């Protein structure tokens, strides 16, 4: 069997890449290792017989150009929540709600700190203005850093500024800083202030920096992509795990599946991480000796877990509005502990988590669930000891401080633990500052990355998929000038 392009991984990036390549007239085979495509957006049958979201609960970085080009809005994509406010649980037990309305947000903060209330307005304005200025660079494959002149001085400062230092410069309330730092992924890394800017540069439902939930959850969004891909003639094969790449010299010629079957193609797009693609699938050191050693050293030590708690009753949210994303992070300094604990393969003392209640905002899901994202967890637990049971206990007890009687209502728990291979690094300043072209291309000819690893930061976006498809299409055109 021979196709123009093989796409490894049926996540959003892989689906978008195969769809765009198919629309460009290329024959595409999409290989998904699991039983269903969708990646972090797929649903998983849980213990209670209900379907729960497998990973991401909200979307915040979907490529607007893709939404328009693939005509998503006429394919049934609607959003139940278009702009989720950020709920911060304050140490006194109260909840602080930061929505889009700056005046209201400032008023809410003013109850705790007048300085922070004043600064929050300016912080948001600066962040959003900078984000808008840097959009061309993070939205398309712009050649080189765009850095508009008026933003360059600030950008140069941000390149070396950690999100923690940046937030410390604005605010005095620890809970506010800790919650805002959640989006920076690794807020003590140098340059992670850029992660905040990148977040603010995203757009959902036409609103800058918004978090949204599509009707039917992220799975519905992936479902539309799968339907579009199938309709356009992309062949999707599930349960097909790729064992290795087939190379001729430094040129990719296809893949060999775990089953031993070989599929030949003229190019391969991988939605796995750069590490997994080049270290596990390609022949030893074919990425180059120095690059291979760099990739081996760059194993991420912290990652993000998605935990879905299936409940038998609606959770008691204790004043938190159901359509908000609640960030639970006590103090900014706790992030330092997550890093050092993760390096020792242990859970941190304080878990940093984001809680979304998909049921409350989406009654049609027909289930009650809490979707929890925990950051700063060790990727490889020491001595292979599974952290899942320990983690579940810690997550539930942390949540119970805010939601009474939660434990009694849990009927099922689903884990999606951080693995070393899914992600390259939580945050890397070189990754966020490089171009799409540099993140998509690999040292092997005809091999491209199209998933989350090719984005400036890990996110469900589809942008890398769209741009990788363009690069693969150009590669194929050069090979056969027909």
């Amino acid at each position, binding site marked *: 069997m021979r196709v123009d392009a093989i796409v490894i991984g049926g996540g959003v990036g892989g689906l978008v890449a195969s769809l765009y390549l198919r629309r460009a007239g290329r024959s595409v085979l999409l290989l998904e290792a699991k039983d269903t495509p969708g990646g972090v957006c797929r649903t998983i049958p849980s213990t209670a017989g209900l379907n729960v979201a497998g990973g991401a609960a909200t979307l915040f970085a979907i490529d607007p150009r893709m939404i328009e080009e693939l005509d998503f809005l006429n394919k049934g994509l609607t959003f139940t929540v278009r702009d989720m406010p950020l709920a911060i649980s304050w140490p006194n037990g109260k909840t602080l709600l930061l929505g889009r309305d700056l005046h209201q947000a400032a008023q809410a903060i003013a109850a705790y700190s007048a300085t922070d209330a004043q600064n929050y307005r300016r912080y948001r304005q600066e962040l959003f203005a900078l984000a808008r200025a840097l959009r061309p660079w993070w939205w398309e494959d712009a050649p080189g850093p765009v850095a508009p002149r008026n933003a360059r001085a600030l950008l140069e400062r941000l390149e070396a500024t950690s999100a923690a230092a940046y937030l410390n410069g604005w605010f005095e309330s620890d809970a506010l800083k800790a919650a805002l730092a959640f989006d920076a992924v690794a807020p003590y890394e140098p340059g992670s202030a850029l992660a905040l800017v990148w977040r603010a540069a995203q757009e959902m439902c036409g609103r800058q920096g918004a978090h949204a939930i599509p009707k039917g959850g992220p799975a519905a969004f992936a479902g539309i992509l799968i339907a579009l891909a199938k309709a356009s003639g992309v062949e999707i094969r599930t349960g097909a795990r790729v064992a290795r790449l087939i190379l001729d010299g430094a040129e990719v010629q296809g893949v060999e599946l775990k089953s031993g079957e070989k599929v030949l193609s003229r190019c391969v797009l991988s939605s796995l991480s750069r590490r997994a693609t080049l270290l596990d699938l390609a022949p*030893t*050191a*074919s990425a*180059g*000796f*120095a*690059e*291979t050693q760099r990739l081996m050293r760059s194993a991420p030590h912290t990652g993000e877990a998605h935990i879905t708690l299936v409940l038998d009753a609606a959770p008691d949210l204790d004043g938190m509005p159901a359509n908000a994303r609640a960030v639970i992070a006590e103090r900014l300094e706790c992030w330092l502990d997550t890093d050092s604990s993760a390096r020792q393969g242990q859970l941190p003392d304080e878990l940093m988590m984001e809680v979304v209640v998909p049921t409350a905002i989406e009654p049609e899901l027909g289930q009650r669930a809490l979707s929890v994202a925990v950051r700063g967890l060790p990727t490889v637990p020491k001595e292979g000891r599974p952290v899942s049971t320990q983690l579940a206990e810690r997550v539930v007890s942390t949540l119970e401080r805010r939601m009474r009687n939660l434990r009694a209502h849990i009927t099922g728990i689903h884990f999606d633990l951080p693995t070393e291979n899914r992600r390259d690094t939580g945050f890397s300043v070189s990754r966020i500052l490089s171009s799409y072209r540099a993140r998509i291309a690999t040292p092997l000819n005809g091999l491209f990355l199209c998933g989350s690893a090719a984005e400036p930061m890990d996110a469900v976006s589809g942008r890398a998929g769209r741009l990788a498809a363009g690069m693969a299409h150009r590669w194929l055109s050069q090979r056969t000038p027909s």
Partner: protein
Amino acid sequence: MTDVLATPFHARASAANRFNRWKLRNGWTLAADYGSAQDEAIAARLNCAAADISWRWRVAIEGRRAEEFLSRLVTRDPARLAPGTAFKALWLNDHGGVRGAGVIARHGRESFRLISTAADRSWIERAGALFDVTVRDVSQEEGGLAIAGPYARLVAEAAGLDPALEPSNFRKIFWRGLDVTLSRFGEHGGYELWCKAEDGSIVWDRIAKAGAEYALRPVGLDAMDILDLEAGVPRPGRDYEPARDGFGAEPSPFDLGLESLIDDLHKLFNGRAALRGIRKTKARVGLEFDGETPMPHMPLLQGTEPVGRTWSSLYSPALRGAIALAQVNLDAAALGTELVCGGQTARVCALPFLPVPDSIGE
């Protein structure tokens, strides 16, 4: 400060080194000359000479995946090597910059030797670890003695070593109680004799005895450097700065004039993909001077335009004039082009400066 190492032939070399002139190379102390470097260079060209080459960096590369590893490391495919044969090749970094050059010799199915004039230990050891291959430095376990000159073959024969050996081949020999390896890797003809470190003095004495009839004389490092430059071979460290980091693209093999060491049919080696995007912009040429020997690494002018730099330079007693290796822009590389170097005129000439002397008795 690292230790100064004595080669296995040091006892004999120091007895012969009447003027006590020594030089340090790769950590080894070696006789600079045994009287006159120029006389020795002439002897090695017209007669025969023995030189200590134990300073060359040698590693044994062994393991199940040794062939695969070397195939990925160097610019030619060792799968084509039969045991007992060798080739010269380059190794490049990820972006196509030359890290080193050397001889790859196949000892067995899973056993190779790499011999180079400059060590690149960490690169080869770390890369070998990716393939579970052991990379062992054997420089101190073995000594090497070069037998150069037209009479080298007769000397080897007189010493009881069967000299029937094709160029680039080597053979292990049990030589009157000693395990030695006889090879023909060199650019200036002749043979190399490799022995265990403890056998150094015996080997020296046997060669000296066998060579007495042909006026064999020991030659020092300076004379060997003259032969080396006359052969026109650029050396890492001496002539060009090798690409010591993993990612820089300088120097490119094309600009060093070493593209002949890249096998076009060898499709996958480190740096291969990057070579596609590299164009040749400079050429390696020889320069002949009418006057003084210039300093090494001098700028070269064509008219008033800078067109390149010299590499190493010295006085060639065989050519009776100063010569230099140089790297110049392609449009200044035509034979006979006159360039200005430090105020004096230099002419571009063909490489090598002198051919390998014909072997007598072959």
